């Protein structure tokens, strides 16, 4: 079956900068895809191209089985059936809450009675029905957020694009809204692309995760797969931070003096980078074949554990440890072979 939203070979240059290079992306119907990347990675540009707010220099874009951009095709924005929730919400400050939601429906020629019903239903679905006659400046940040979402959903878009919608909300509210957006989009059965630079948000919100850097899509797949089996040092470090050791393959082990570390991960080549996560550090006796040692140079309390910085004779590592360890102490630890992922060193620079 053809993907519901598909981009092929999309490229875009803004001024001097090549923002997107030959990018392929697909989203299935009803799927929520998170696109994660640092600022400047081209993720916002990508969804602006899908929405039609800007035109690609090359490539083609299909939405709901119809070509919306390609050679000799450029469907106008309003005919693409794309919803968009802006980072700053972009709720019109001079219209009431109901006016905001009804604006597009009115332009589409919908009659008064039907429109009122749709507006009411959309506002009820985001639980701000009683605020219909308020103006945006009388709403809290979270309420404006919901209004922006309701305004898009009321148009029954084929796909809804969310551009970092939680970046302007304070931390306490963010967790709550995150769950709410997820439930709402799922309840409407809408296909969604969710842009963010926050890895915990990206992983929490999606069926599938895609990581972008420098205008390229590095890897996509279920979040747990990307977390466990990153394909580049960048994906590994961007998804929750990782320790990395460079070495060469010898059988099923990576030789990185002074260490020799075993892994179950298939090797991508002779020269590799072995990555493991701080929380995978175990006592030395757990996996004696992967034993490492060093002295503690810093110890910070994180709440659920202590974050140790350990200096080996090679690189320094971050370890999550169940108890406090005094600085200068010598500590040995180990990592399970199936928690040691292998990536090609500096793929993003050699490509």
């Amino acid at each position, binding site marked *: 079956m053809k993907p519901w939203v598909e981009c092929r070979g999309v490229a875009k240059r803004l001024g001097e900068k090549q923002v997107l290079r030959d990018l392929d992306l697909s989203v299935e119907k009803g799927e929520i895809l998170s696109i994660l990347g640092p600022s400047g990675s081209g993720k916002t540009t990508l969804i602006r191209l899908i929405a039609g*707010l800007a035109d690609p220099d090359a490539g083609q874009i299909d939405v709901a089985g119809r070509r919306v951009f390609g050679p000799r095709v450029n469907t106008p924005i*309003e005919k693409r059936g794309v919803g*968009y929730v802006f980072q700053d919400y972009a709720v019109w400050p001079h219209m009431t809450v109901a006016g905001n939601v009804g*604006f597009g429906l009115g332009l589409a020629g919908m009659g008064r009675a039907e429109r009122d019903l749709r507006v009411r239903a959309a506002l009820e679905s985001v639980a701000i029905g009683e605020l219909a006659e308020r103006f945006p400046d009388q709403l809290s940040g979270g309420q404006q957020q919901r209004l922006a979402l309701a305004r898009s959903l009321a148009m029954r878009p084929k796909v809804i694009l969310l551009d970092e919608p939680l970046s302007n909300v304070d931390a306490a509210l963010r967790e709550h809204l995150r769950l709410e957006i997820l439930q709402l989009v799922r309840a409407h059965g809408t296909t969604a692309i969710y842009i963010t630079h926050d890895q915990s948000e990206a992983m929490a919100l999606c069926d599938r995760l895609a990581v972008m850097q420098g205008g390229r899509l590095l890897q996509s797949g279920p979040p747990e797969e990307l977390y466990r089996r990153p394909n580049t040092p960048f994906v590994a470090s961007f998804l929750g931070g990782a320790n990395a050791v460079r070495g060469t393959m010898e059988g099923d082990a990576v030789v990185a003096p002074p260490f020799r570390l075993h892994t179950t991960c298939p090797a991508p080549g002779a020269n590799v980078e072995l990555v493991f996560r701080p929380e995978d550090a175990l006592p030395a006796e757990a996996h004696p074949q992967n034993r490492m040692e060093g002295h503690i140079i810093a110890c910070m309390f994180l709440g659920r554990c202590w974050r140790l910085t350990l200096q080996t004779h090679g690189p320094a590592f971050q370890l999550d440890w169940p108890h406090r360890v005094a600085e200068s102490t010598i500590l040995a630890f180990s990592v399970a072979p199936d928690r040691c992922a292998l990536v090609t060193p500096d793929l993003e620079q050699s490509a």
Partner: protein
Amino acid sequence: MIRNLPFTLAVALGFGVLVLLPLALVMGQAVMPGLVDHADFTIRFAKLLATLTDPRSLTSILHTIVLGTIAAGCATALGFVYAVMLTRTDTPGRRLLQATPWLVFLTPAYLKALAWVLLMSPGGYLQQFGLLSDDASDAFFGLGGLVFVHTLNLFPLAVFVIGSAMRGLGGEFEDAARTVGAASFGAWWRINLPLLAPAVALAFLAMFAEVASDFGLASTIARTSDFGLLTYAIYTATENYPVDFPLAGSQALVLLAILSAVLLLDRTLRRQRSLRLITGRSRPARVYRLRRWRWLVCALAGLVSVLSVYLPLGAIVLRTASRTLGQGLVAQNLTWRWIEQALTAGQEANLALSRSLGFAALTALISGVLALLLAWRLDLGGKILRNAVLAVAMGAIAIPGVVMGLGYILTWDRLPGFVDTGLYGKWPLLVLGYVSAALPYALVIVLGAISQIAPSLNDAARLHGAGPATRLARITVPLIASSLITAVLFVFVRTVFELPMSQLLQPTAGAPAPVVIVRMFGNDDDGIGSALSLLAIVATGGIAGAVWLVARGLGRHFWRNGVETMGGMPGGR
């Protein structure tokens, strides 16, 4: 880019005809004496040199520079002190004193100048009250009086510029100096003054340029005192028979050269790095407790307010209500005659006022619509065009009205093709001149407001199916409505009292109010002149205030309650 080509061409053509062509003719005329009279393109510097060496011209050039320097210096000093008083002291009545700079800024210079003539002339009000000796009265009509009135008229500019720099400076730098042992005075001398110096210099330059371009005082106090100034010299060269365009052109070129030098200094100064220190967030500075000195400071600031606004306005009111100036404040000298005359339809004063109000309303509407459309398209378009238009607009603001007026005469009275339109001497040309003088201000205000709108608000409307016209009408205009109305009202007020364009482009069928006011005072008809001035102020203020109130009411209605009705328009077109 190509899509924007027709728009770019239209903008270029508009600004070309309204600003660049007249300016080019003025400058061309200076070096090609036969340009407009004989279509002779020979470049001859003889006339320009003659202008620069002719004693009369030379005097007016010197006078302009000397007066500009002294008046700008005095206004800077007064503005600095006033700004310190407003921002850093606990002087009582600061709310009232804060209004003074705005009131001064909004009343035209020549009206205050004429009022001061009533006050200072021999046998004038101040002599009647025994407050002024004959010597002081004589001294007023000359450099002293001009400096005095310019200072009182311009110091608000320094208050705005220096005051905002002071607020931006905050108190940290000064407090830091105090913590390392500087005394209060030392902190001012070593820290605050050097940091404020760029703002002080910018204020000085801006006011120098204002004095050099001024036509209001030049054609009133300076003319009466026979104190020749460049702007008035340009005007007389075009008015006195025989008309001497080459002389006017070369004097205008000298004036433009002086202003360009000021502009260049201003740019250089703005590029200095020290200026950037004075922006960004800062904590408000400590307010000095003046203790028992506070009433003295209050009295002095009050005196400045009285001299710069209330006394001149009072003189005009008094003169309006008196039969003659000489008889003074006695019961039998009181009269309604002048007001009645000014209110009688068909009388010259009344005709002039209605003309001016009509022209100003038309100018305000045209400028508002043009500024809106232009700003809207510029905001969508490329940066290059936007910056080019802004540069031309800012340049046009810096060109003195009398030079633009001269350019319009050269264009519409002499240039083949333009002459054939027959517009010269007709009111539409005066309105065109008004529009060209006002449009840059309106554009700057509206463009500023439009660029404040988050682009996502328009993007969101596009995604909901709104076309360009719908977005302009239902997103952009409602969001900038108050700035748009401010721009229109500013243009209206400014145009009712605009003097130089009115003077140079007055329609043969009848002159607008500013020309008639200045002429009446010149012909010793100052009673009816005062009545006309007073009526113009009241009418303009009344109309502007009423429009503002109505607009605000309507805005509230649509903004707060009527959105459902707006949303109810089928198709929204």
